[in-house]
Each structure stands twice: as C-alpha cells, then as structure tokens.
C-alpha cells in the first residue's frame, strides 16, 4: 500500500514567501543605491558589496554553529543584505573600509543574532551598527563630501581614493547648527536649497540625500504592504507639524520645516527603517503611536541636543517600546 502524506490543514500554502519580501525590499532600495553609485562611484558600490558579504557570512557562520546544520536556504534568502545596504546608506559616503566591516559585524552579531536571529531582534540591526560606529569613530562621521563630478567624469574604476573633485563640506543640518552656535542667524526660508535637497545634490550620508529616489522606493514598500503605511504617515506628519511650530516661534534660529524634512535621514528613516516589520508594532493603533514617537523624538533631538540628526536614536528608542506598545494596542476580535 502506498504511503499518503498526512498533514494538518490547510493543505496549500501561498506562493509568496520570505524571499519575495526580501527581493521587493532590495528593489525598493535600488533607486537610492543607484543614486549613491552615480554620485560617489565604484567606491560606494564596493562598500555595499563588502558590507553585504560580511553580514551574510556572519549570519551563515552563526547559524551553522548554532544549529549544527548547514542552513543554505536561509543563507540564500539574503536577509542580511538588506541590513548591509542600510548600513552603507546611512553612513557618510567616504570612509575607511574597516569601518563598514565593524558596523556590519556589530549589526549582525549584536543587533540580530544575539537576540536569537532574524525575527526576534528588538532593535533595528542596521541602526544598531550605525550608532555603534557613530559613537566609536565620531571624527569620521561628521565629514561629508559634495562631489562636483559624477562617476563618468571620475574614472570608472577608481575605487580606492576619494573622488578627485569632492569638496569636504558640512551637511545642511550641521551647518545650520554651527551658524546658530556662533551667533549668526539663518534665512527664514531657505528656498534655494529645496530643489537640490529634493533631488539629492547636497552633502549627506550615502543613501539619504536624494529624497526623490527614496520616495520612489518608499512607494514600492508601502504599495506592496511590506511596510505599514501608518508608520511613515504618522512619523512625517508629526515631524512636519512639530518642526513648523518650533520654526514659527524661533524664526532665524531653526531651519524651515521644508528644508528640515528634505535634509538628513528623516525620509530614509521614516520610509525604510521605521517600517522594518521585525522591529515595528504589529497592530494599526500601535503603528500610529510608533510613528508619532519617531517623528516627535527626531524633532526634539534635532533642536535640543548637540546632535544635528536624530532619526536613528528615535527609531532605536521607539524599538525598545514595541513590546509594550503591542501589548496595549491589540485590536478587538470580530464581535468580541
């Protein structure tokens, strides 16, 4: 008699599985990655590849040791590649390569595996890695560049050196902080920076400068429902409202809200990092609370702390509240 397979219902599974999610996420990051490539050349591409390999290898080794089994299919899902790309995107474009390695190791080991692996981590691993090197190598972290040329003029295979014409320059946010610190005032509306900031021709971290590229990718994430739309919606709304209020009462000392939202990592953070499904709340009410928290904290850090940028810290802080938020925002069941 032949053996029939016994299984509990349901007897079919959807075609859509983890690797598709990872694939769509990667596709969503592509516009921003391409922009950084166009802007900073092969050097940045090499950084992406390096960080990805480090993340993937760490994960694979860890899984093999932990489960005493070769988890090739897990390895092939390339979950770590998303973390790796985020690390490069949030760091300044020109760094010694070992910093990427350190960030990647910290992200995958401390940010992910120590919590029990993908799905169990409380903190966003990419931000964990980024904050670690931000604190550890702070001198490198404030040096940003504004290339005056792009890869085509720069020599295609120049991966070791800084682009020839790159000008070391502070970001809009740092510059504003410094101006105010030495007693100067800011223009009320910095209209002339709006367009370059939107397109991305400003100094900043490798993947966060071009708001346009990020919006395209963010749209992909939200339309495919990989990230909950409520989080960026709540986060950006709160950010804009608070930034407007503070700006209105401190004109000349605080950047106008449009410049604020277009510079720094707020769009990248809200669309890509806060929506990371592993570390964000499960239920709709909780997602709104989470978004509001991220937006408000970012404004407060930008205005009241010595750091020019605060989205990373805000997301990490809100991450740690997620279990609590989830616990008190459970929806009622149908008819319950």
């Amino acid at each position, binding site marked *: 008699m032949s053996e029939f397979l016994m*299984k509990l219902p349901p007897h*079919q599974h959807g075609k*859509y599985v983890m690797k598709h*999610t990872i694939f769509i996420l990667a596709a969503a990051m592509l516009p921003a990655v391409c922009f950084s490539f166009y802007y900073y050349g092969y050097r940045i591409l090499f950084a992406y590849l390096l960080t990805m390999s480090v993340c993937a290898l760490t994960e694979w080794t860890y899984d093999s040791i932990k489960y005493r089994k070769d988890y090739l299919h897990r390895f092939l899902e390339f979950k770590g590649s998303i973390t790796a790309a985020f690390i490069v995107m949030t760091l300044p474009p020109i760094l010694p390569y070992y910093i990427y390695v350190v960030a990647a190791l910290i992200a995958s080991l401390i940010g992910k595996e120590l919590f029990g692996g*993908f799905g169990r981590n409380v903190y966003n691993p990419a931000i964990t890695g980024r904050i670690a090197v931000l604190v550890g190598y702070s001198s490198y972290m404030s040096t940003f560049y504004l290339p005056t040329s792009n890869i085509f003029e720069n020599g295609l295979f120049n991966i070791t050196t800084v682009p020839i014409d790159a000008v070391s320059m502070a970001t809009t946010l740092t510059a504003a902080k410094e101006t105010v610190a030495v007693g100067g005032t800011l223009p009320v509306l910095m209209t002339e920076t709006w367009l370059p900031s939107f397109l991305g021709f400003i100094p900043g971290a490798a993947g966060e400068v071009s708001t346009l590229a990020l919006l395209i990718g963010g749209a992909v994430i939200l339309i495919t429902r990989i990230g909950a739309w409520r989080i960026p919606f709540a986060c950006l709304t709160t950010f804009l409202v608070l930034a407007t209020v503070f700006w209105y009462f401190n004109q000349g000392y605080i950047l106008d809200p449009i410049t604020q939202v277009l510079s720094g990592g707020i769009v990248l953070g809200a669309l890509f990092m806060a929506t990371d499904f592993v570390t964000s709340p*499960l239920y709709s009410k909780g997602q709104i609370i989470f978004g509001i928290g991220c937006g408000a904290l970012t404004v407060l850090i930008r205005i009241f702390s010595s750091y020019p940028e605060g989205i990373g810290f805000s997301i990490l802080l809100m991450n740690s509240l997620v279990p609590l938020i989830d616990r008190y925002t*459970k929806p009622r*069941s*149908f*008819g319950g």
Partner: protein
Amino acid sequence: MKLYSIKGGIKLKQNKFADANIINTLPVLDGELFYYPLSNSFCTNSIPVVSKGDVVKAGDLIAKASESGFSIDIHSSVDGIIEDITQIKHSKLITTEGIVIKASEQSGDYTKLTPAKDIESSVKNAGVLGMGGAGFPSYIKFCSSKSQVDTLIINASESEPYLTCDQSILINKADELIETILLIKKELDIKRVIVALEGNTTEQTDKFKQLAKDNSIDIAELPRKYPYSGEKQLIYVLLGRTVKKGEFPSSVKVMIQNISTIYSIYEAIKKSKPVIDRVVTISGDIPTHQNIIVKVGTTVRSLLEKLNLDPEQYNRIILGGLMTGTSIADLDTPLLKTVSAVLLLNDKVASHDEEACARCGRCIDSCVMRLSPTGINNSIVQGDIDQALKDDLMSCIECGCCSYVCISSRKLMESIQYAKNFLVKDHIASLEMEKASGGKK
C-alpha cells in the same frame, strides 16, 4: 445589492475543473462494505438500534440520536446485513465506534421516513447536518430560530478551490431548492431570503437566479475571496449585523443554511428520504473531474476502484477542501455526510521548516476574525493558554488563511486548532483542580 466590506480574507486559485452541469451517480456493488461512525467531532455518540446479523434496507434507522448534547440519527444507505459494530476509521477522529454494513442486492428503493408535523422534526428524523463541512445538526438551528428570525441566508458560495458540488446542486435542482426555501420562509415566518452566490457565476446559474427573482428572493454576488462564506462573515457582509462572540446567528435574527443542506431538507420533507447520499466533487490532479452522488459510508477505496483511479499514483488524499479538509492515510476511511469533496493530489509539498515569526503582519491582515494569529501562536508555543484565551483563541473559525500567507511557514492555524481541541480543556481542568485544592487550604 449593497454589500458591507470586511477586513481580511485571501484570494485563492480557483481550479474549479469539475463540471457543475452534470451530476453522476456512483453504483453500489454486491458485498461492498459501508461504514457508519457513531459520532463526528461535534456530536455525542448516537446509540445503535441494530445488532450484528440484522438485515436492513436503505433508509432504515441504524442508530438514534442520544438524548444528551448534540446528536443525530444515522440511517443505512444501502440494503444489506449488519456485519459488525466495532472500531472503524474516521477522517477526523482516527478511529471511533461504528457500524459496518455489507451490501446485498440493491432494490434501488429506500424506507420512507414517517411523516412529521413540521420541518424541524422531519429535519431531525432525516439526520440532516450542516453539509458545508462543520457538521452542526440542522434541527438545532430550527428549534432555536422559531419566530425570532427575520432573515434566511442561503450560503451557495464555495470559496474553496476545486469544489463545485454546491454549484452543481444549484444548477440541477433549482426548482426543488426554491420550493424548500419558500417552505422554510413560510413556516418560520421569515421576511427576507438572501442567496449568497460567488461572484462571476456563469450563465448556468441563470435559471436559479430567474426563479429566485420571480419568488422575490434576493441574490447577492460575493467577491471571490476566501473565506467570505464563514457564517459570521456572511451575515456581516450581507446585512451589516455583527454576531457577538460566543453567540449564534439567531442572536441577530438570522438563520443561515448551506445550499446542500437545503437540498437535504427538500429530500426529507418532500421525498421523506433521510440523508443517505450526497453530491461529492472528485477532483485534484486526476484526469476526469466530476460531481457524483455517493452513498454515505462508502469507503475511499471503493470509490476510487469504481472510478478507475489508481491511488498509487497520488501522494495525498484530502477529504473536503484544500483549506479545511482532512488528509487521510487509510483508504478504508468512509465518506460521511459532511464530506464535500475527495481531492487526489500528486504534487511536491514544500516542507519548509518553521522559522521565527518575522512579525510581517500578513497573518493579522488575512484573519477575517481580526485575531492576531502570530500573537496567539506565540502564547500557545510558550504554554500560556490563559493569554491565548484572552486573545480570543476560541473565536478562530479555523479557515487556514493565516497559515496560508505566513512568510515564515509558521503552523499558525494548526497550533490554534490543537490548542482549541486539547489544550484548552486541560487548562480549564487544571484551573478547576487548583480552585478545588485552594478551597481546601
């Protein structure tokens, strides 16, 4: 007709290969064995009224409903001799006590039920069950519905893949169905009848639709989404009424019946025929798909033999739909009143390990009961049944959507089913023990 929208549900591949226009009949062979389990997962055991060696005719009562709990009458579906009363296979319970009948020559006739005074008693005497799969005795719906129901909903949507047996009844038995619906409407003094059909039904159902229109019965075309046909979901989608947790449809003045059940009621009232056969869809990865009338108690083995299907060629046999049916290992498992389909599949089953939940929220989005499958699963895995109950474990309708969509291949519905069937009872028992021992101190 205006439909209320409801959160959740999934789109499934339809695979409706079996032609709904034709209903075949499966012959009975001399000496074939028929099995009748005395219980289903829902009901308390019926009590046998025959003993070994008795000669029975089709339609004869062989076990009567027990007085306690939900229970139903069981009738012989063939002419034959009682072979034994022993432990037999059951698709859901593995083994259970049951009656075995050896078929002799068939007269083709059946023993008529004694005429009853109202629908409720004829439904009870005929042993009608919810034929959609749940197996809830139908007479209970009638006795709890008397004069407090204003709407009758007929569920004619089959959202599971492959199944077309309900549709085949709809197409072939339109007159009979309408007649029965009108009878129930009159007897229970119901104001409105709605028949819920699946969206984009073919022209074949036009006859039914026309008849329904002539008799002022409303037709609602549901979107093709699984599982809109769950009772509470259907009531909400059609009427906007919410059945509270732990309540029955009668609490919102609704009676809901499956279309196959309506046909069984027709046979019980008009033909005095107990439920001894039903339409079953035979489909899957087989060459000829069909709808066929099968006698209750037929084993899968003899069904396949008569249809010239070689079980060796398939690796899975599923009784019922793909989402909620039961896979069986033993070909001697009998087909019961609740089995709407036999699916023979031969496919690779991806055996993914369960991974840690990625918290993607897809299971929550898919759940029509607005539960949190991942949260409940977590509590169950950690052994925290209290928390699972607080999260409304018992409201789960076991539709399977959550397991279907999970990107980490977590066995969500499986664990919830297990907890509902076993862990909760243990948990309540242990709580009572604790209370008792605490009282002594």
